[in-house]
């Protein structure tokens, strides 16, 4: 096993202010950025705040920005950096900072509550749901989401424009709407909720300019833009901008 001393810059501070602090820290073969942050805690900065849990890329807790790129610290290998490269670690820059690398992501929970949940079909009791695999596999891709909120963090609609936060749900929750709209048993439409139209009118789908940063940073490699956001835009276009489709669906309300 080989080891070397790496130069780290880690943002330290809170909502009142802070700065990037320099650290020289030991790095061993096979380590990830989160290992180094833990070594900093153990050796030089015992009060360094960092949120983490699984160390396996499955809990979505250790989201941060490494050399300016939104990433999971536990999934960022040190071997991707050269030995003389300075590694800069900051908290996610879209959300209010709590302390050091910890941010307040409660905006996302607010947005999650604003998405109407699955509406069960009438006359089918829980446990009696039957769906063909081919009908649910599109939605299953979106269920891989670990809610790390890196997509929410990198989306320029809110990252660069605080004023859009009330109107825009962000890629993670637009993807949730797409998931429900594609769900073969969701009966929201029977109760007057057209999810695609609602995505446009109530959740700010129109703010998305499909520049694919959400897809680029997704640690689960979910094709958020191609498989969720663009299909949702097309479904909204069906309802709002395509009179033929709208008329057809009114005349023949087929159970698609």
């Amino acid at each position, binding site marked *: 096993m080989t080891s070397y001393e790496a130069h780290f810059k880690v943002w330290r501070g809170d909502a009142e202010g802070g700065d990037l602090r320099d650290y020289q820290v030991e790095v061993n073969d096979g380590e990830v950025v989160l290992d180094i942050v833990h070594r900093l805690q153990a050796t030089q900065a015992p009060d360094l705040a960092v949120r983490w849990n699984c160390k396996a890329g499955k809990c979505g807790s250790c989201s941060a920005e490494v050399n300016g790129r939104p990433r999971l610290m536990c999934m960022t290998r040190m071997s991707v950096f050269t030995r003389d490269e300075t590694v800069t670690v900051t908290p996610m820059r879209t959300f209010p900072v709590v302390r050091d690398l910890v941010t307040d992501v409660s905006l996302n929970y607010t947005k999650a509550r604003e998405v109407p949940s699955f509406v069960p079909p009438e006359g089918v009791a829980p446990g009696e749901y039957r769906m063909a695999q081919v009908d649910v596999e599109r939605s299953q891709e979106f269920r891989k989401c670990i809610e790390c909120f890196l997509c929410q963090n990198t989306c320029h609609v809110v990252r660069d424009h605080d004023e859009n936060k009330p109107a825009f749900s962000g890629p993670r929750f637009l993807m949730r709407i797409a998931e429900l709209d594609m769900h073969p048993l969701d009966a929201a439409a029977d109760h007057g909720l057209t999810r695609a139209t*609602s995505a446009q009118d109530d959740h700010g789908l129109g703010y998305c300019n499909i520049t694919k940063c959400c897809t680029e940073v997704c640690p689960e490699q979910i094709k958020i833009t191609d498989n969720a956001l663009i299909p949702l835009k097309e479904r909204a*276009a069906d309802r709002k901008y395509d009179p033929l489709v709208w008329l057809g669906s009114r005349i023949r309300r087929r159970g698609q």
Partner: protein
Amino acid sequence: MATGTTPAAPPAPSPRDRGVRAPGRAAITAPHLRTDRWWLPPLVTALGLAAFVGYSTWRAFANADYYAAPYVSPFYSPCLAHNCVPMKGGADWALFGPWWGLSPALLVLIFPLGFRATCYYYRKAYYRGFYAAPPACAVAEPHAKYTGETRFPLILQNLHRYFFYIALLVAGILTYDTALGFRDTHGAWGHMGLGTLVLLANIALIWAYTLSCHSCRHIVGGRLRHFSRHPVRYRLWSWVGVLNRRHMLLAWSSLISVGIADLYVYLVASGAFDDPRFF
């Protein structure tokens, strides 16, 4: 729903106080901390698109050297004006009379242009490359305000599917033009020259790009909720999905091929180059 709440319009924050430097976020003065060459992809994209726009503008207004029997430039087909040069058996329909004095290409190019301008890939490309919204992921954009595609004119991007329908017609006409490339200059079948191959490659890429379109993917099956009840449309959706994963590649290769096809016809029509004939 709370998302519908409209905040009272506050005074616009100064560049030093907005976006990633807004109060409450981690106090970092740099607009981004990326150390890689994030500027390269948008720069290359912008240069590539600008080069094509420059070339196609010149050719569209040139109104010359677009037909060298049996080849017609894809920029000028179908040729819908009275002032088109005669094309033996080609898509030469004088819908616009002698009053139309401009290049006939202008009547047609608006449709492929609209198809590509509203294409989901090209939107990403020019939003990043020309408008810097954003220039790259996690790189702060320079705009004080952003409304995306919620307002005029960008809300018109939702018309992409209509341009797709027209693009199908245009691709059909270009296929016909390609078939005519198998005739010789006198209209007899059984000819093949280098130009025939150029047009063949071009039309193959045009079809692949057109069918890989996200609107196409939605129309053939994406809008369904029960694939199991529509096995044929599910199969079509799956095939289009395979192409759709390469939409960016097809967008660029078909853009380049259409430029090369036009350039080839221009070189042959202007006498700068003789079309090598295979049989």
